[in-house]
C-alpha cells in the first residue's frame, strides 16, 4: 500500500531560557494509507510535538516529512494551510471548537474554506450521524464535553480527509463518554477510509490501532506493526 506519511531523520529542539531542549531526535517512520496508527509515550516524550510537525503545524530543525505526496519543508505557511484543508483532519484533546460559532457552523468551516457550497447541508448530515441532529444551533458552551468532541469529530471528517490526526481525543472525557467517542472515531474512520494517527497515553486505545509508535525522551523506543 502507498505511504501517506514518511518521516526521516527528524529533529526538533526548543530553547528554554539559556538552555536548548532537544524534544525529538532521530525520528524515522512511515505510515501507510488507510491504516490506524498510535503514538504513545509518557508526558514530555514529544508526542504532541511530533504530531504538530507531521501535520505541518510547525517546522523541524532538520529532517524531512513527506505528507500526502508533498515535502512539507518546501511549502510556505499558506501552502501548508491549504494542504491541511484538503487532506488533513484534526481532533484535539480539548475539542477546540470555535466558541463563537454554533455546532453546525463549526462543522461547516473546513468545507466553506474549501469553497463547498453544500457546507451547511453536509454539516447537518454529519451532525445527525454523530447523534447531534437536534443540537446543530447550539454553541459549544451549551454542549457537554462528549457532545463537543462529537462535533469536533464531525468537523474533522467533514472534508473527507486523507489523514486524521487525533491528539488525546478522549483525554478530557469520562470513561463511558470516552469509549463512545472512541467507537465513533473508529466507525467514521472505517467508513471514510481515512488514515488515522492518534496521540495518546491511553494504552487501551492504542491497542485498537494497527501500528504503535512508542516514544521516550524524544526518541522512538518501539515501532510495532500489529495485525488487528
Amino acid at each position: 500500500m502507498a505511504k501517506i506519511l514518511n518521516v526521516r531523520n527528524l529533529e526538533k529542539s526548543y530553547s528554554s531560557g539559556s538552555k536548548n531542549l532537544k524534544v525529538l531526535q532521530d525520528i524515522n517512520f512511515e505510515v501507510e494509507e488507510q491504516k490506524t496508527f498510535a503514538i504513545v509515550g509518557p508526558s514530555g516524550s514529544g508526542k504532541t510535538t511530533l504530531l504538530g510537525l507531521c501535520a505541518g503545524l510547525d517546522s523541524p530543525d532538520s529532517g524531512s516529512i513527506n505528507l500526502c505526496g508533498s515535502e512539507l519543508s518546501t511549502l510556505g505557511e499558506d501552502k501548508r494551510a491549504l494542504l491541511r484543508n484538503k487532506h488533513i483532519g484534526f481532533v484535539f484533546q480539548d475539542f477546540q471548537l470555535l466558541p463563537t460559532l454554533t455546532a453546525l457552523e463549526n462543522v461547516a468551516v473546513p468545507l466553506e474554506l474549501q469553497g463547498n457550497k453544500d457546507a451547511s447541508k453536509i454539516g447537518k448530515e454529519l451532525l445527525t450521524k454523530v447523534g447531534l441532529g437536534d443540537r446543530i444551533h447550539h454553541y459549544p458552551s451549551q454542549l457537554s464535553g462528549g457532545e463537543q468532541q462529537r462535533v469536533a469529530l464531525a468537523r474533522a471528517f467533514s472534508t473527507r480527509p486523507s489523514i486524521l490526526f487525533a491528539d488525546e481525543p478522549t483525554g478530557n472525557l469520562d470513561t463511558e463518554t470516552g469509549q463512545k467517542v472512541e467507537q465513533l472515531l473508529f466507525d467514521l474512520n472505517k467508513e471514510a477510509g481515512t488514515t488515522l494517527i492518534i496521540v495518546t497515553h491511553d494504552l487501551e486505545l492504542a491497542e485498537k490501532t494497527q501500528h504503535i509508535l512508542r516514544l521516550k525522551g524524544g526518541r522512538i523506543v518501539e515501532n510495532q506493526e500489529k495485525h488487528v
Partner: protein
Amino acid sequence: MSNNKTFKPGFSWLFKMAWRDGKASGKKLTLFMASIVLGIAAVVSIQSFGENLKDNISLQSKALMGADYKIDSDKLPNERVMQIMDSLGGAEAREIKFASMAAFPQSEATKLMQVRGIEGRFPFYGELETQPKNASNRYQEEGAALVDATVMLQLGIKPGDSIKIGKVTLPIAGALNEVPGSTAMFSSVAPPVLIPYRFIEESGLVQTGSRIDYEFYFTAPPNTDMEKLDETLDPILDAEDADLDTHTSTSDRLGRRYENFGKFLNLVAFIALLLGCVGIASAIHIYIKEKLRAVAVLKCLGASKKQTFLIYLIQVAFMGLIGGIIGTALGLVLQQLFPWLLEGLLPVDVEINFSLPVIFMGILLGILMSVLFALYPLIGTLYISPLQALRVIKEETKKSRKAIILVSVGIFLFIFLFSLWLLEDWRYSLAFVGGIIITFSILAGVAYLFMQALRKYFPHNWGFVARQSLLNLFRPQNQTLTLVLAIGVGTFLISTLYFSKDLLLAQASIESQANSPNMILLDVQSDQQEAVARTIKTNDLPVLDNIPIVTMRVQNIAGKPVNEIRKDTTSQINGWILNHEFRVTYRDSLIASESIESGEWTAEAGDINPVPISISNNFAEDAKVSVGDELIFNVQGVLLNTVVGSVRTVDWSRMQLNFSLVFPKGVLEDAPQFHVLTTKVPGQEKSAQLQQELVKEFPNVSIIDLRQVLSVIEDILARISWIINFMAFFSIFTGIIVLLGAIRTSKYQRIRESVLLRTLGAKGKQILNINALEYIYLGVLGGLSGVLLSLISSQLLAWLVFESPFTPSLIPFLVLFPGIVLLVLIIGLSNSLSVIRKPPLEVLRKEVK
C-alpha cells in the same frame, strides 16, 4: 454524503465569519465602538458648525458690512483719496465713527458709546433692526438717535427720551437691535448709537487726539470682481493712509478669526478621539488575545494567514463604521447647541445645515481610526502558530518588527496629516504629534519603571492581600500599561485645560492693589486737565496718573524714509510701523509693567540730540531696530530726530496704559497733546456720580470704567471657558468609557484567578481588597502622572504662548486627582462584585466559556 459543489471562498465568506464571530462577541465589541463615538461626535459637531458658520458669514457678507465695499481712514481723506472715490462714482453713504461718553438726562446715567454719524441710505444690504420698526426710517429725517437696545434696557430709557452726545442733545427714536458693522464683542464695551451725520460737528467732539474713523460706503454693479478691485486700489489707498475693504475680504477675515477658534476646539475634540483610540487599542488587544486560540484552530482547519487576519479586520472596520455613524449623528445633533453656547460671540445668526463632506469625514474617521489603532494587536493573528491549538499553555506571539514599525508610522502619519488638515501649519502639527509622542512615552515609561521597580523591590514581608494586589500590577497579562495610559492621558488633558483656563483668566484680571486705577479718562485736552483733576478731587478721589499723550508717525527708520521702505519688497519691517499713528508719552521713570531689556533709560533729554527714546521690544522687533539706531518722527508736521536709547519689556496683559514709545522729559512738553487721567473709585454709585459730573462739564472726555470692561471680558472668557469645558467633557467621558472598556476587558483575565483564589479558600472581602488596592495603585499612578505632566505642559504654555507667570491652582490636585482615583476604584470594583456574589463554578461556566 452530498456531491461537492465548490467555489472559491472569497470576501463573502470572510464577512460571514466576521459576522458569526462578531455577533457572539457583541458586548466586548460594543465597548470598543463606544470609545470612539464621543470623540467623533466632538470632531463632527465642531467641524460641521464651523462649516455652517463660514457659509453663513459668506452668505451674509454684504449684510455684515452693509455695502459692497468701503473706504476708511483714521483721518480726513486727502485730495488723492477723494479723487479715487470720485472715480468710483462717489460714496453713496458716509459715516464718522468714534467712542464718546453719552449722557441720558431722564435717567441721569452716562455711558461710553460708539457714536456713528451716518449720512445717506446706509445700510444698502441687511437692515437696521429697530424697535419700533419704523424708527430706522425716521431717525435721519427727525434728527433723532437710535440707541443700542441693551443700553436702553439697562438704563431704563424709552423711545422719546433724549441722549446728550458732546454738546448736542437728540431725541431717541428707538432701540437698535442690530446694525451692520458693529461687532458683538466691541458693542459690549462701547455699544453703538446712530445719529445723523449733520450733528457730528455740532457735538464738538472731533478734536485733537480723538480717535475717529471716517468711512465711505459704496455699492457695486453685479458681477464686479471684488478681489481685483481690492488688489488694484488697496495699495494706492494704503499709501494715502486709507483702506479699502470689500464685503468678501471682510467676511473672509471674520471667517478666519472664527476658524482659528474652531481649530483650537477641533484639536481638543481630536484629542478626545485619540483618547478613544487608546481605548480601541487596549480593547482590541485583549479581544484578539482571547481570539488567538480560535485563530490557531482556524489555521489548523486550513485558513490562511490573510483570511484569519481579514476576519477580525472586517469586524473592527464594521465596528468603526457603526461608531462613526453613531458619533457623526450625535455630532450633528450636538452642533445645534453651539449657537446657544456661543451666543453673543458670533457675528451672524447661524442657520444649521448638515454638511455632507463632514458626515463623510466622521464616518471615514471612525473606520480609519479603528482600523489603524487595532492594527497593532491585529497583526498578532498573522504570527500565531497553528500549533497553539495543540498546546495547553498559551505562548506569546512574536510579531514582526517591520510590521510593528509600519503600523506605528501609519498611526503617527495619520495623526500628523489630520492635525495638519485642522491646523494648516506643518510646524504646529509636528509639535502636536511630538507632544502626543512625548506624553504617551512618558506615561508608558512611568508604567514600565513602576513595574520594574516593583519587581526589584517587591515587599515580600507584606501581608497576603497587599502582596497579591501588587503582584497583579506586573505579572503576565497585567493591565498596568493600558490603564496608566488611559487614566494618565485623560487626567493630563482635563488638568491642562483647567490650568490653561486659569492662565487665560489671570491675564485679564486687574491687580487689586490699593493704587491700581479702575477708571480711565481719555481725550482730556491740555487746557482741561487741571479742571478735570479738580472734579475728581472734589469727589474725594485721587488722581493716580496724569499721562500726557502726543500723536506722531514714523518718518525715517535707520536713515531710510518710510515711503521708500513701503516700496521695498524685500523689507522685513512690519507694515503697521509704517502706517500707525503712535500715541506717545514722556516721563522720567519706568512704570511697574516695564523693565529695561537693553540700553540705558534716559530720564531727562536736556540738550541731547538726537533724543534718546525708549522703545518696547515688540516695536524693536517689528521695526527691525535696536539700541543706537536712529528714528525720525513726524510730530504733527514737525520732524524730530531720535535714537533708540533703550529697549523695554512691557507686560501688555496688565490693565493699565502701556506705550510702545516713551520719550524722556524735556522734549515734547510744548507739542500739541492731550492727557489721560486715572483714578480709583470705590463703588458703582460713586463711579456713576463722577461720570455724570465729568460728562456734564467735559463732554469730549471719554471714560472707561475698567470694572465694567472687566465684567465684559469675564463674561466673554466665561463663555469661552464654558465651551472649552464642554469640549473637555468629551475627553472626560471618553476617558471614562476607555477606563470602563479596559477594566471590563481585563475582567475576563481576572475572573479565573479570583475564582481560583475563592476555590482555594479566599474570602470575598480579601478578593475585593486585592482588586480595590490594585485599582487604587493604578488610579494614583495614572492620575498623578497626568496632573504632573499637565503642570509641565501648562508651564510651557505660560512661557511660550501666554507669556505670563503660572501659579498652578490646587483644584486638579484636590478635586480632579482624587476624583479620578475614586472613579477607577468604583468601576474596577463593580466588576469584582460578580465574582464574590456567585458560586465559583457558576462564574467559571458563565464568564470563562
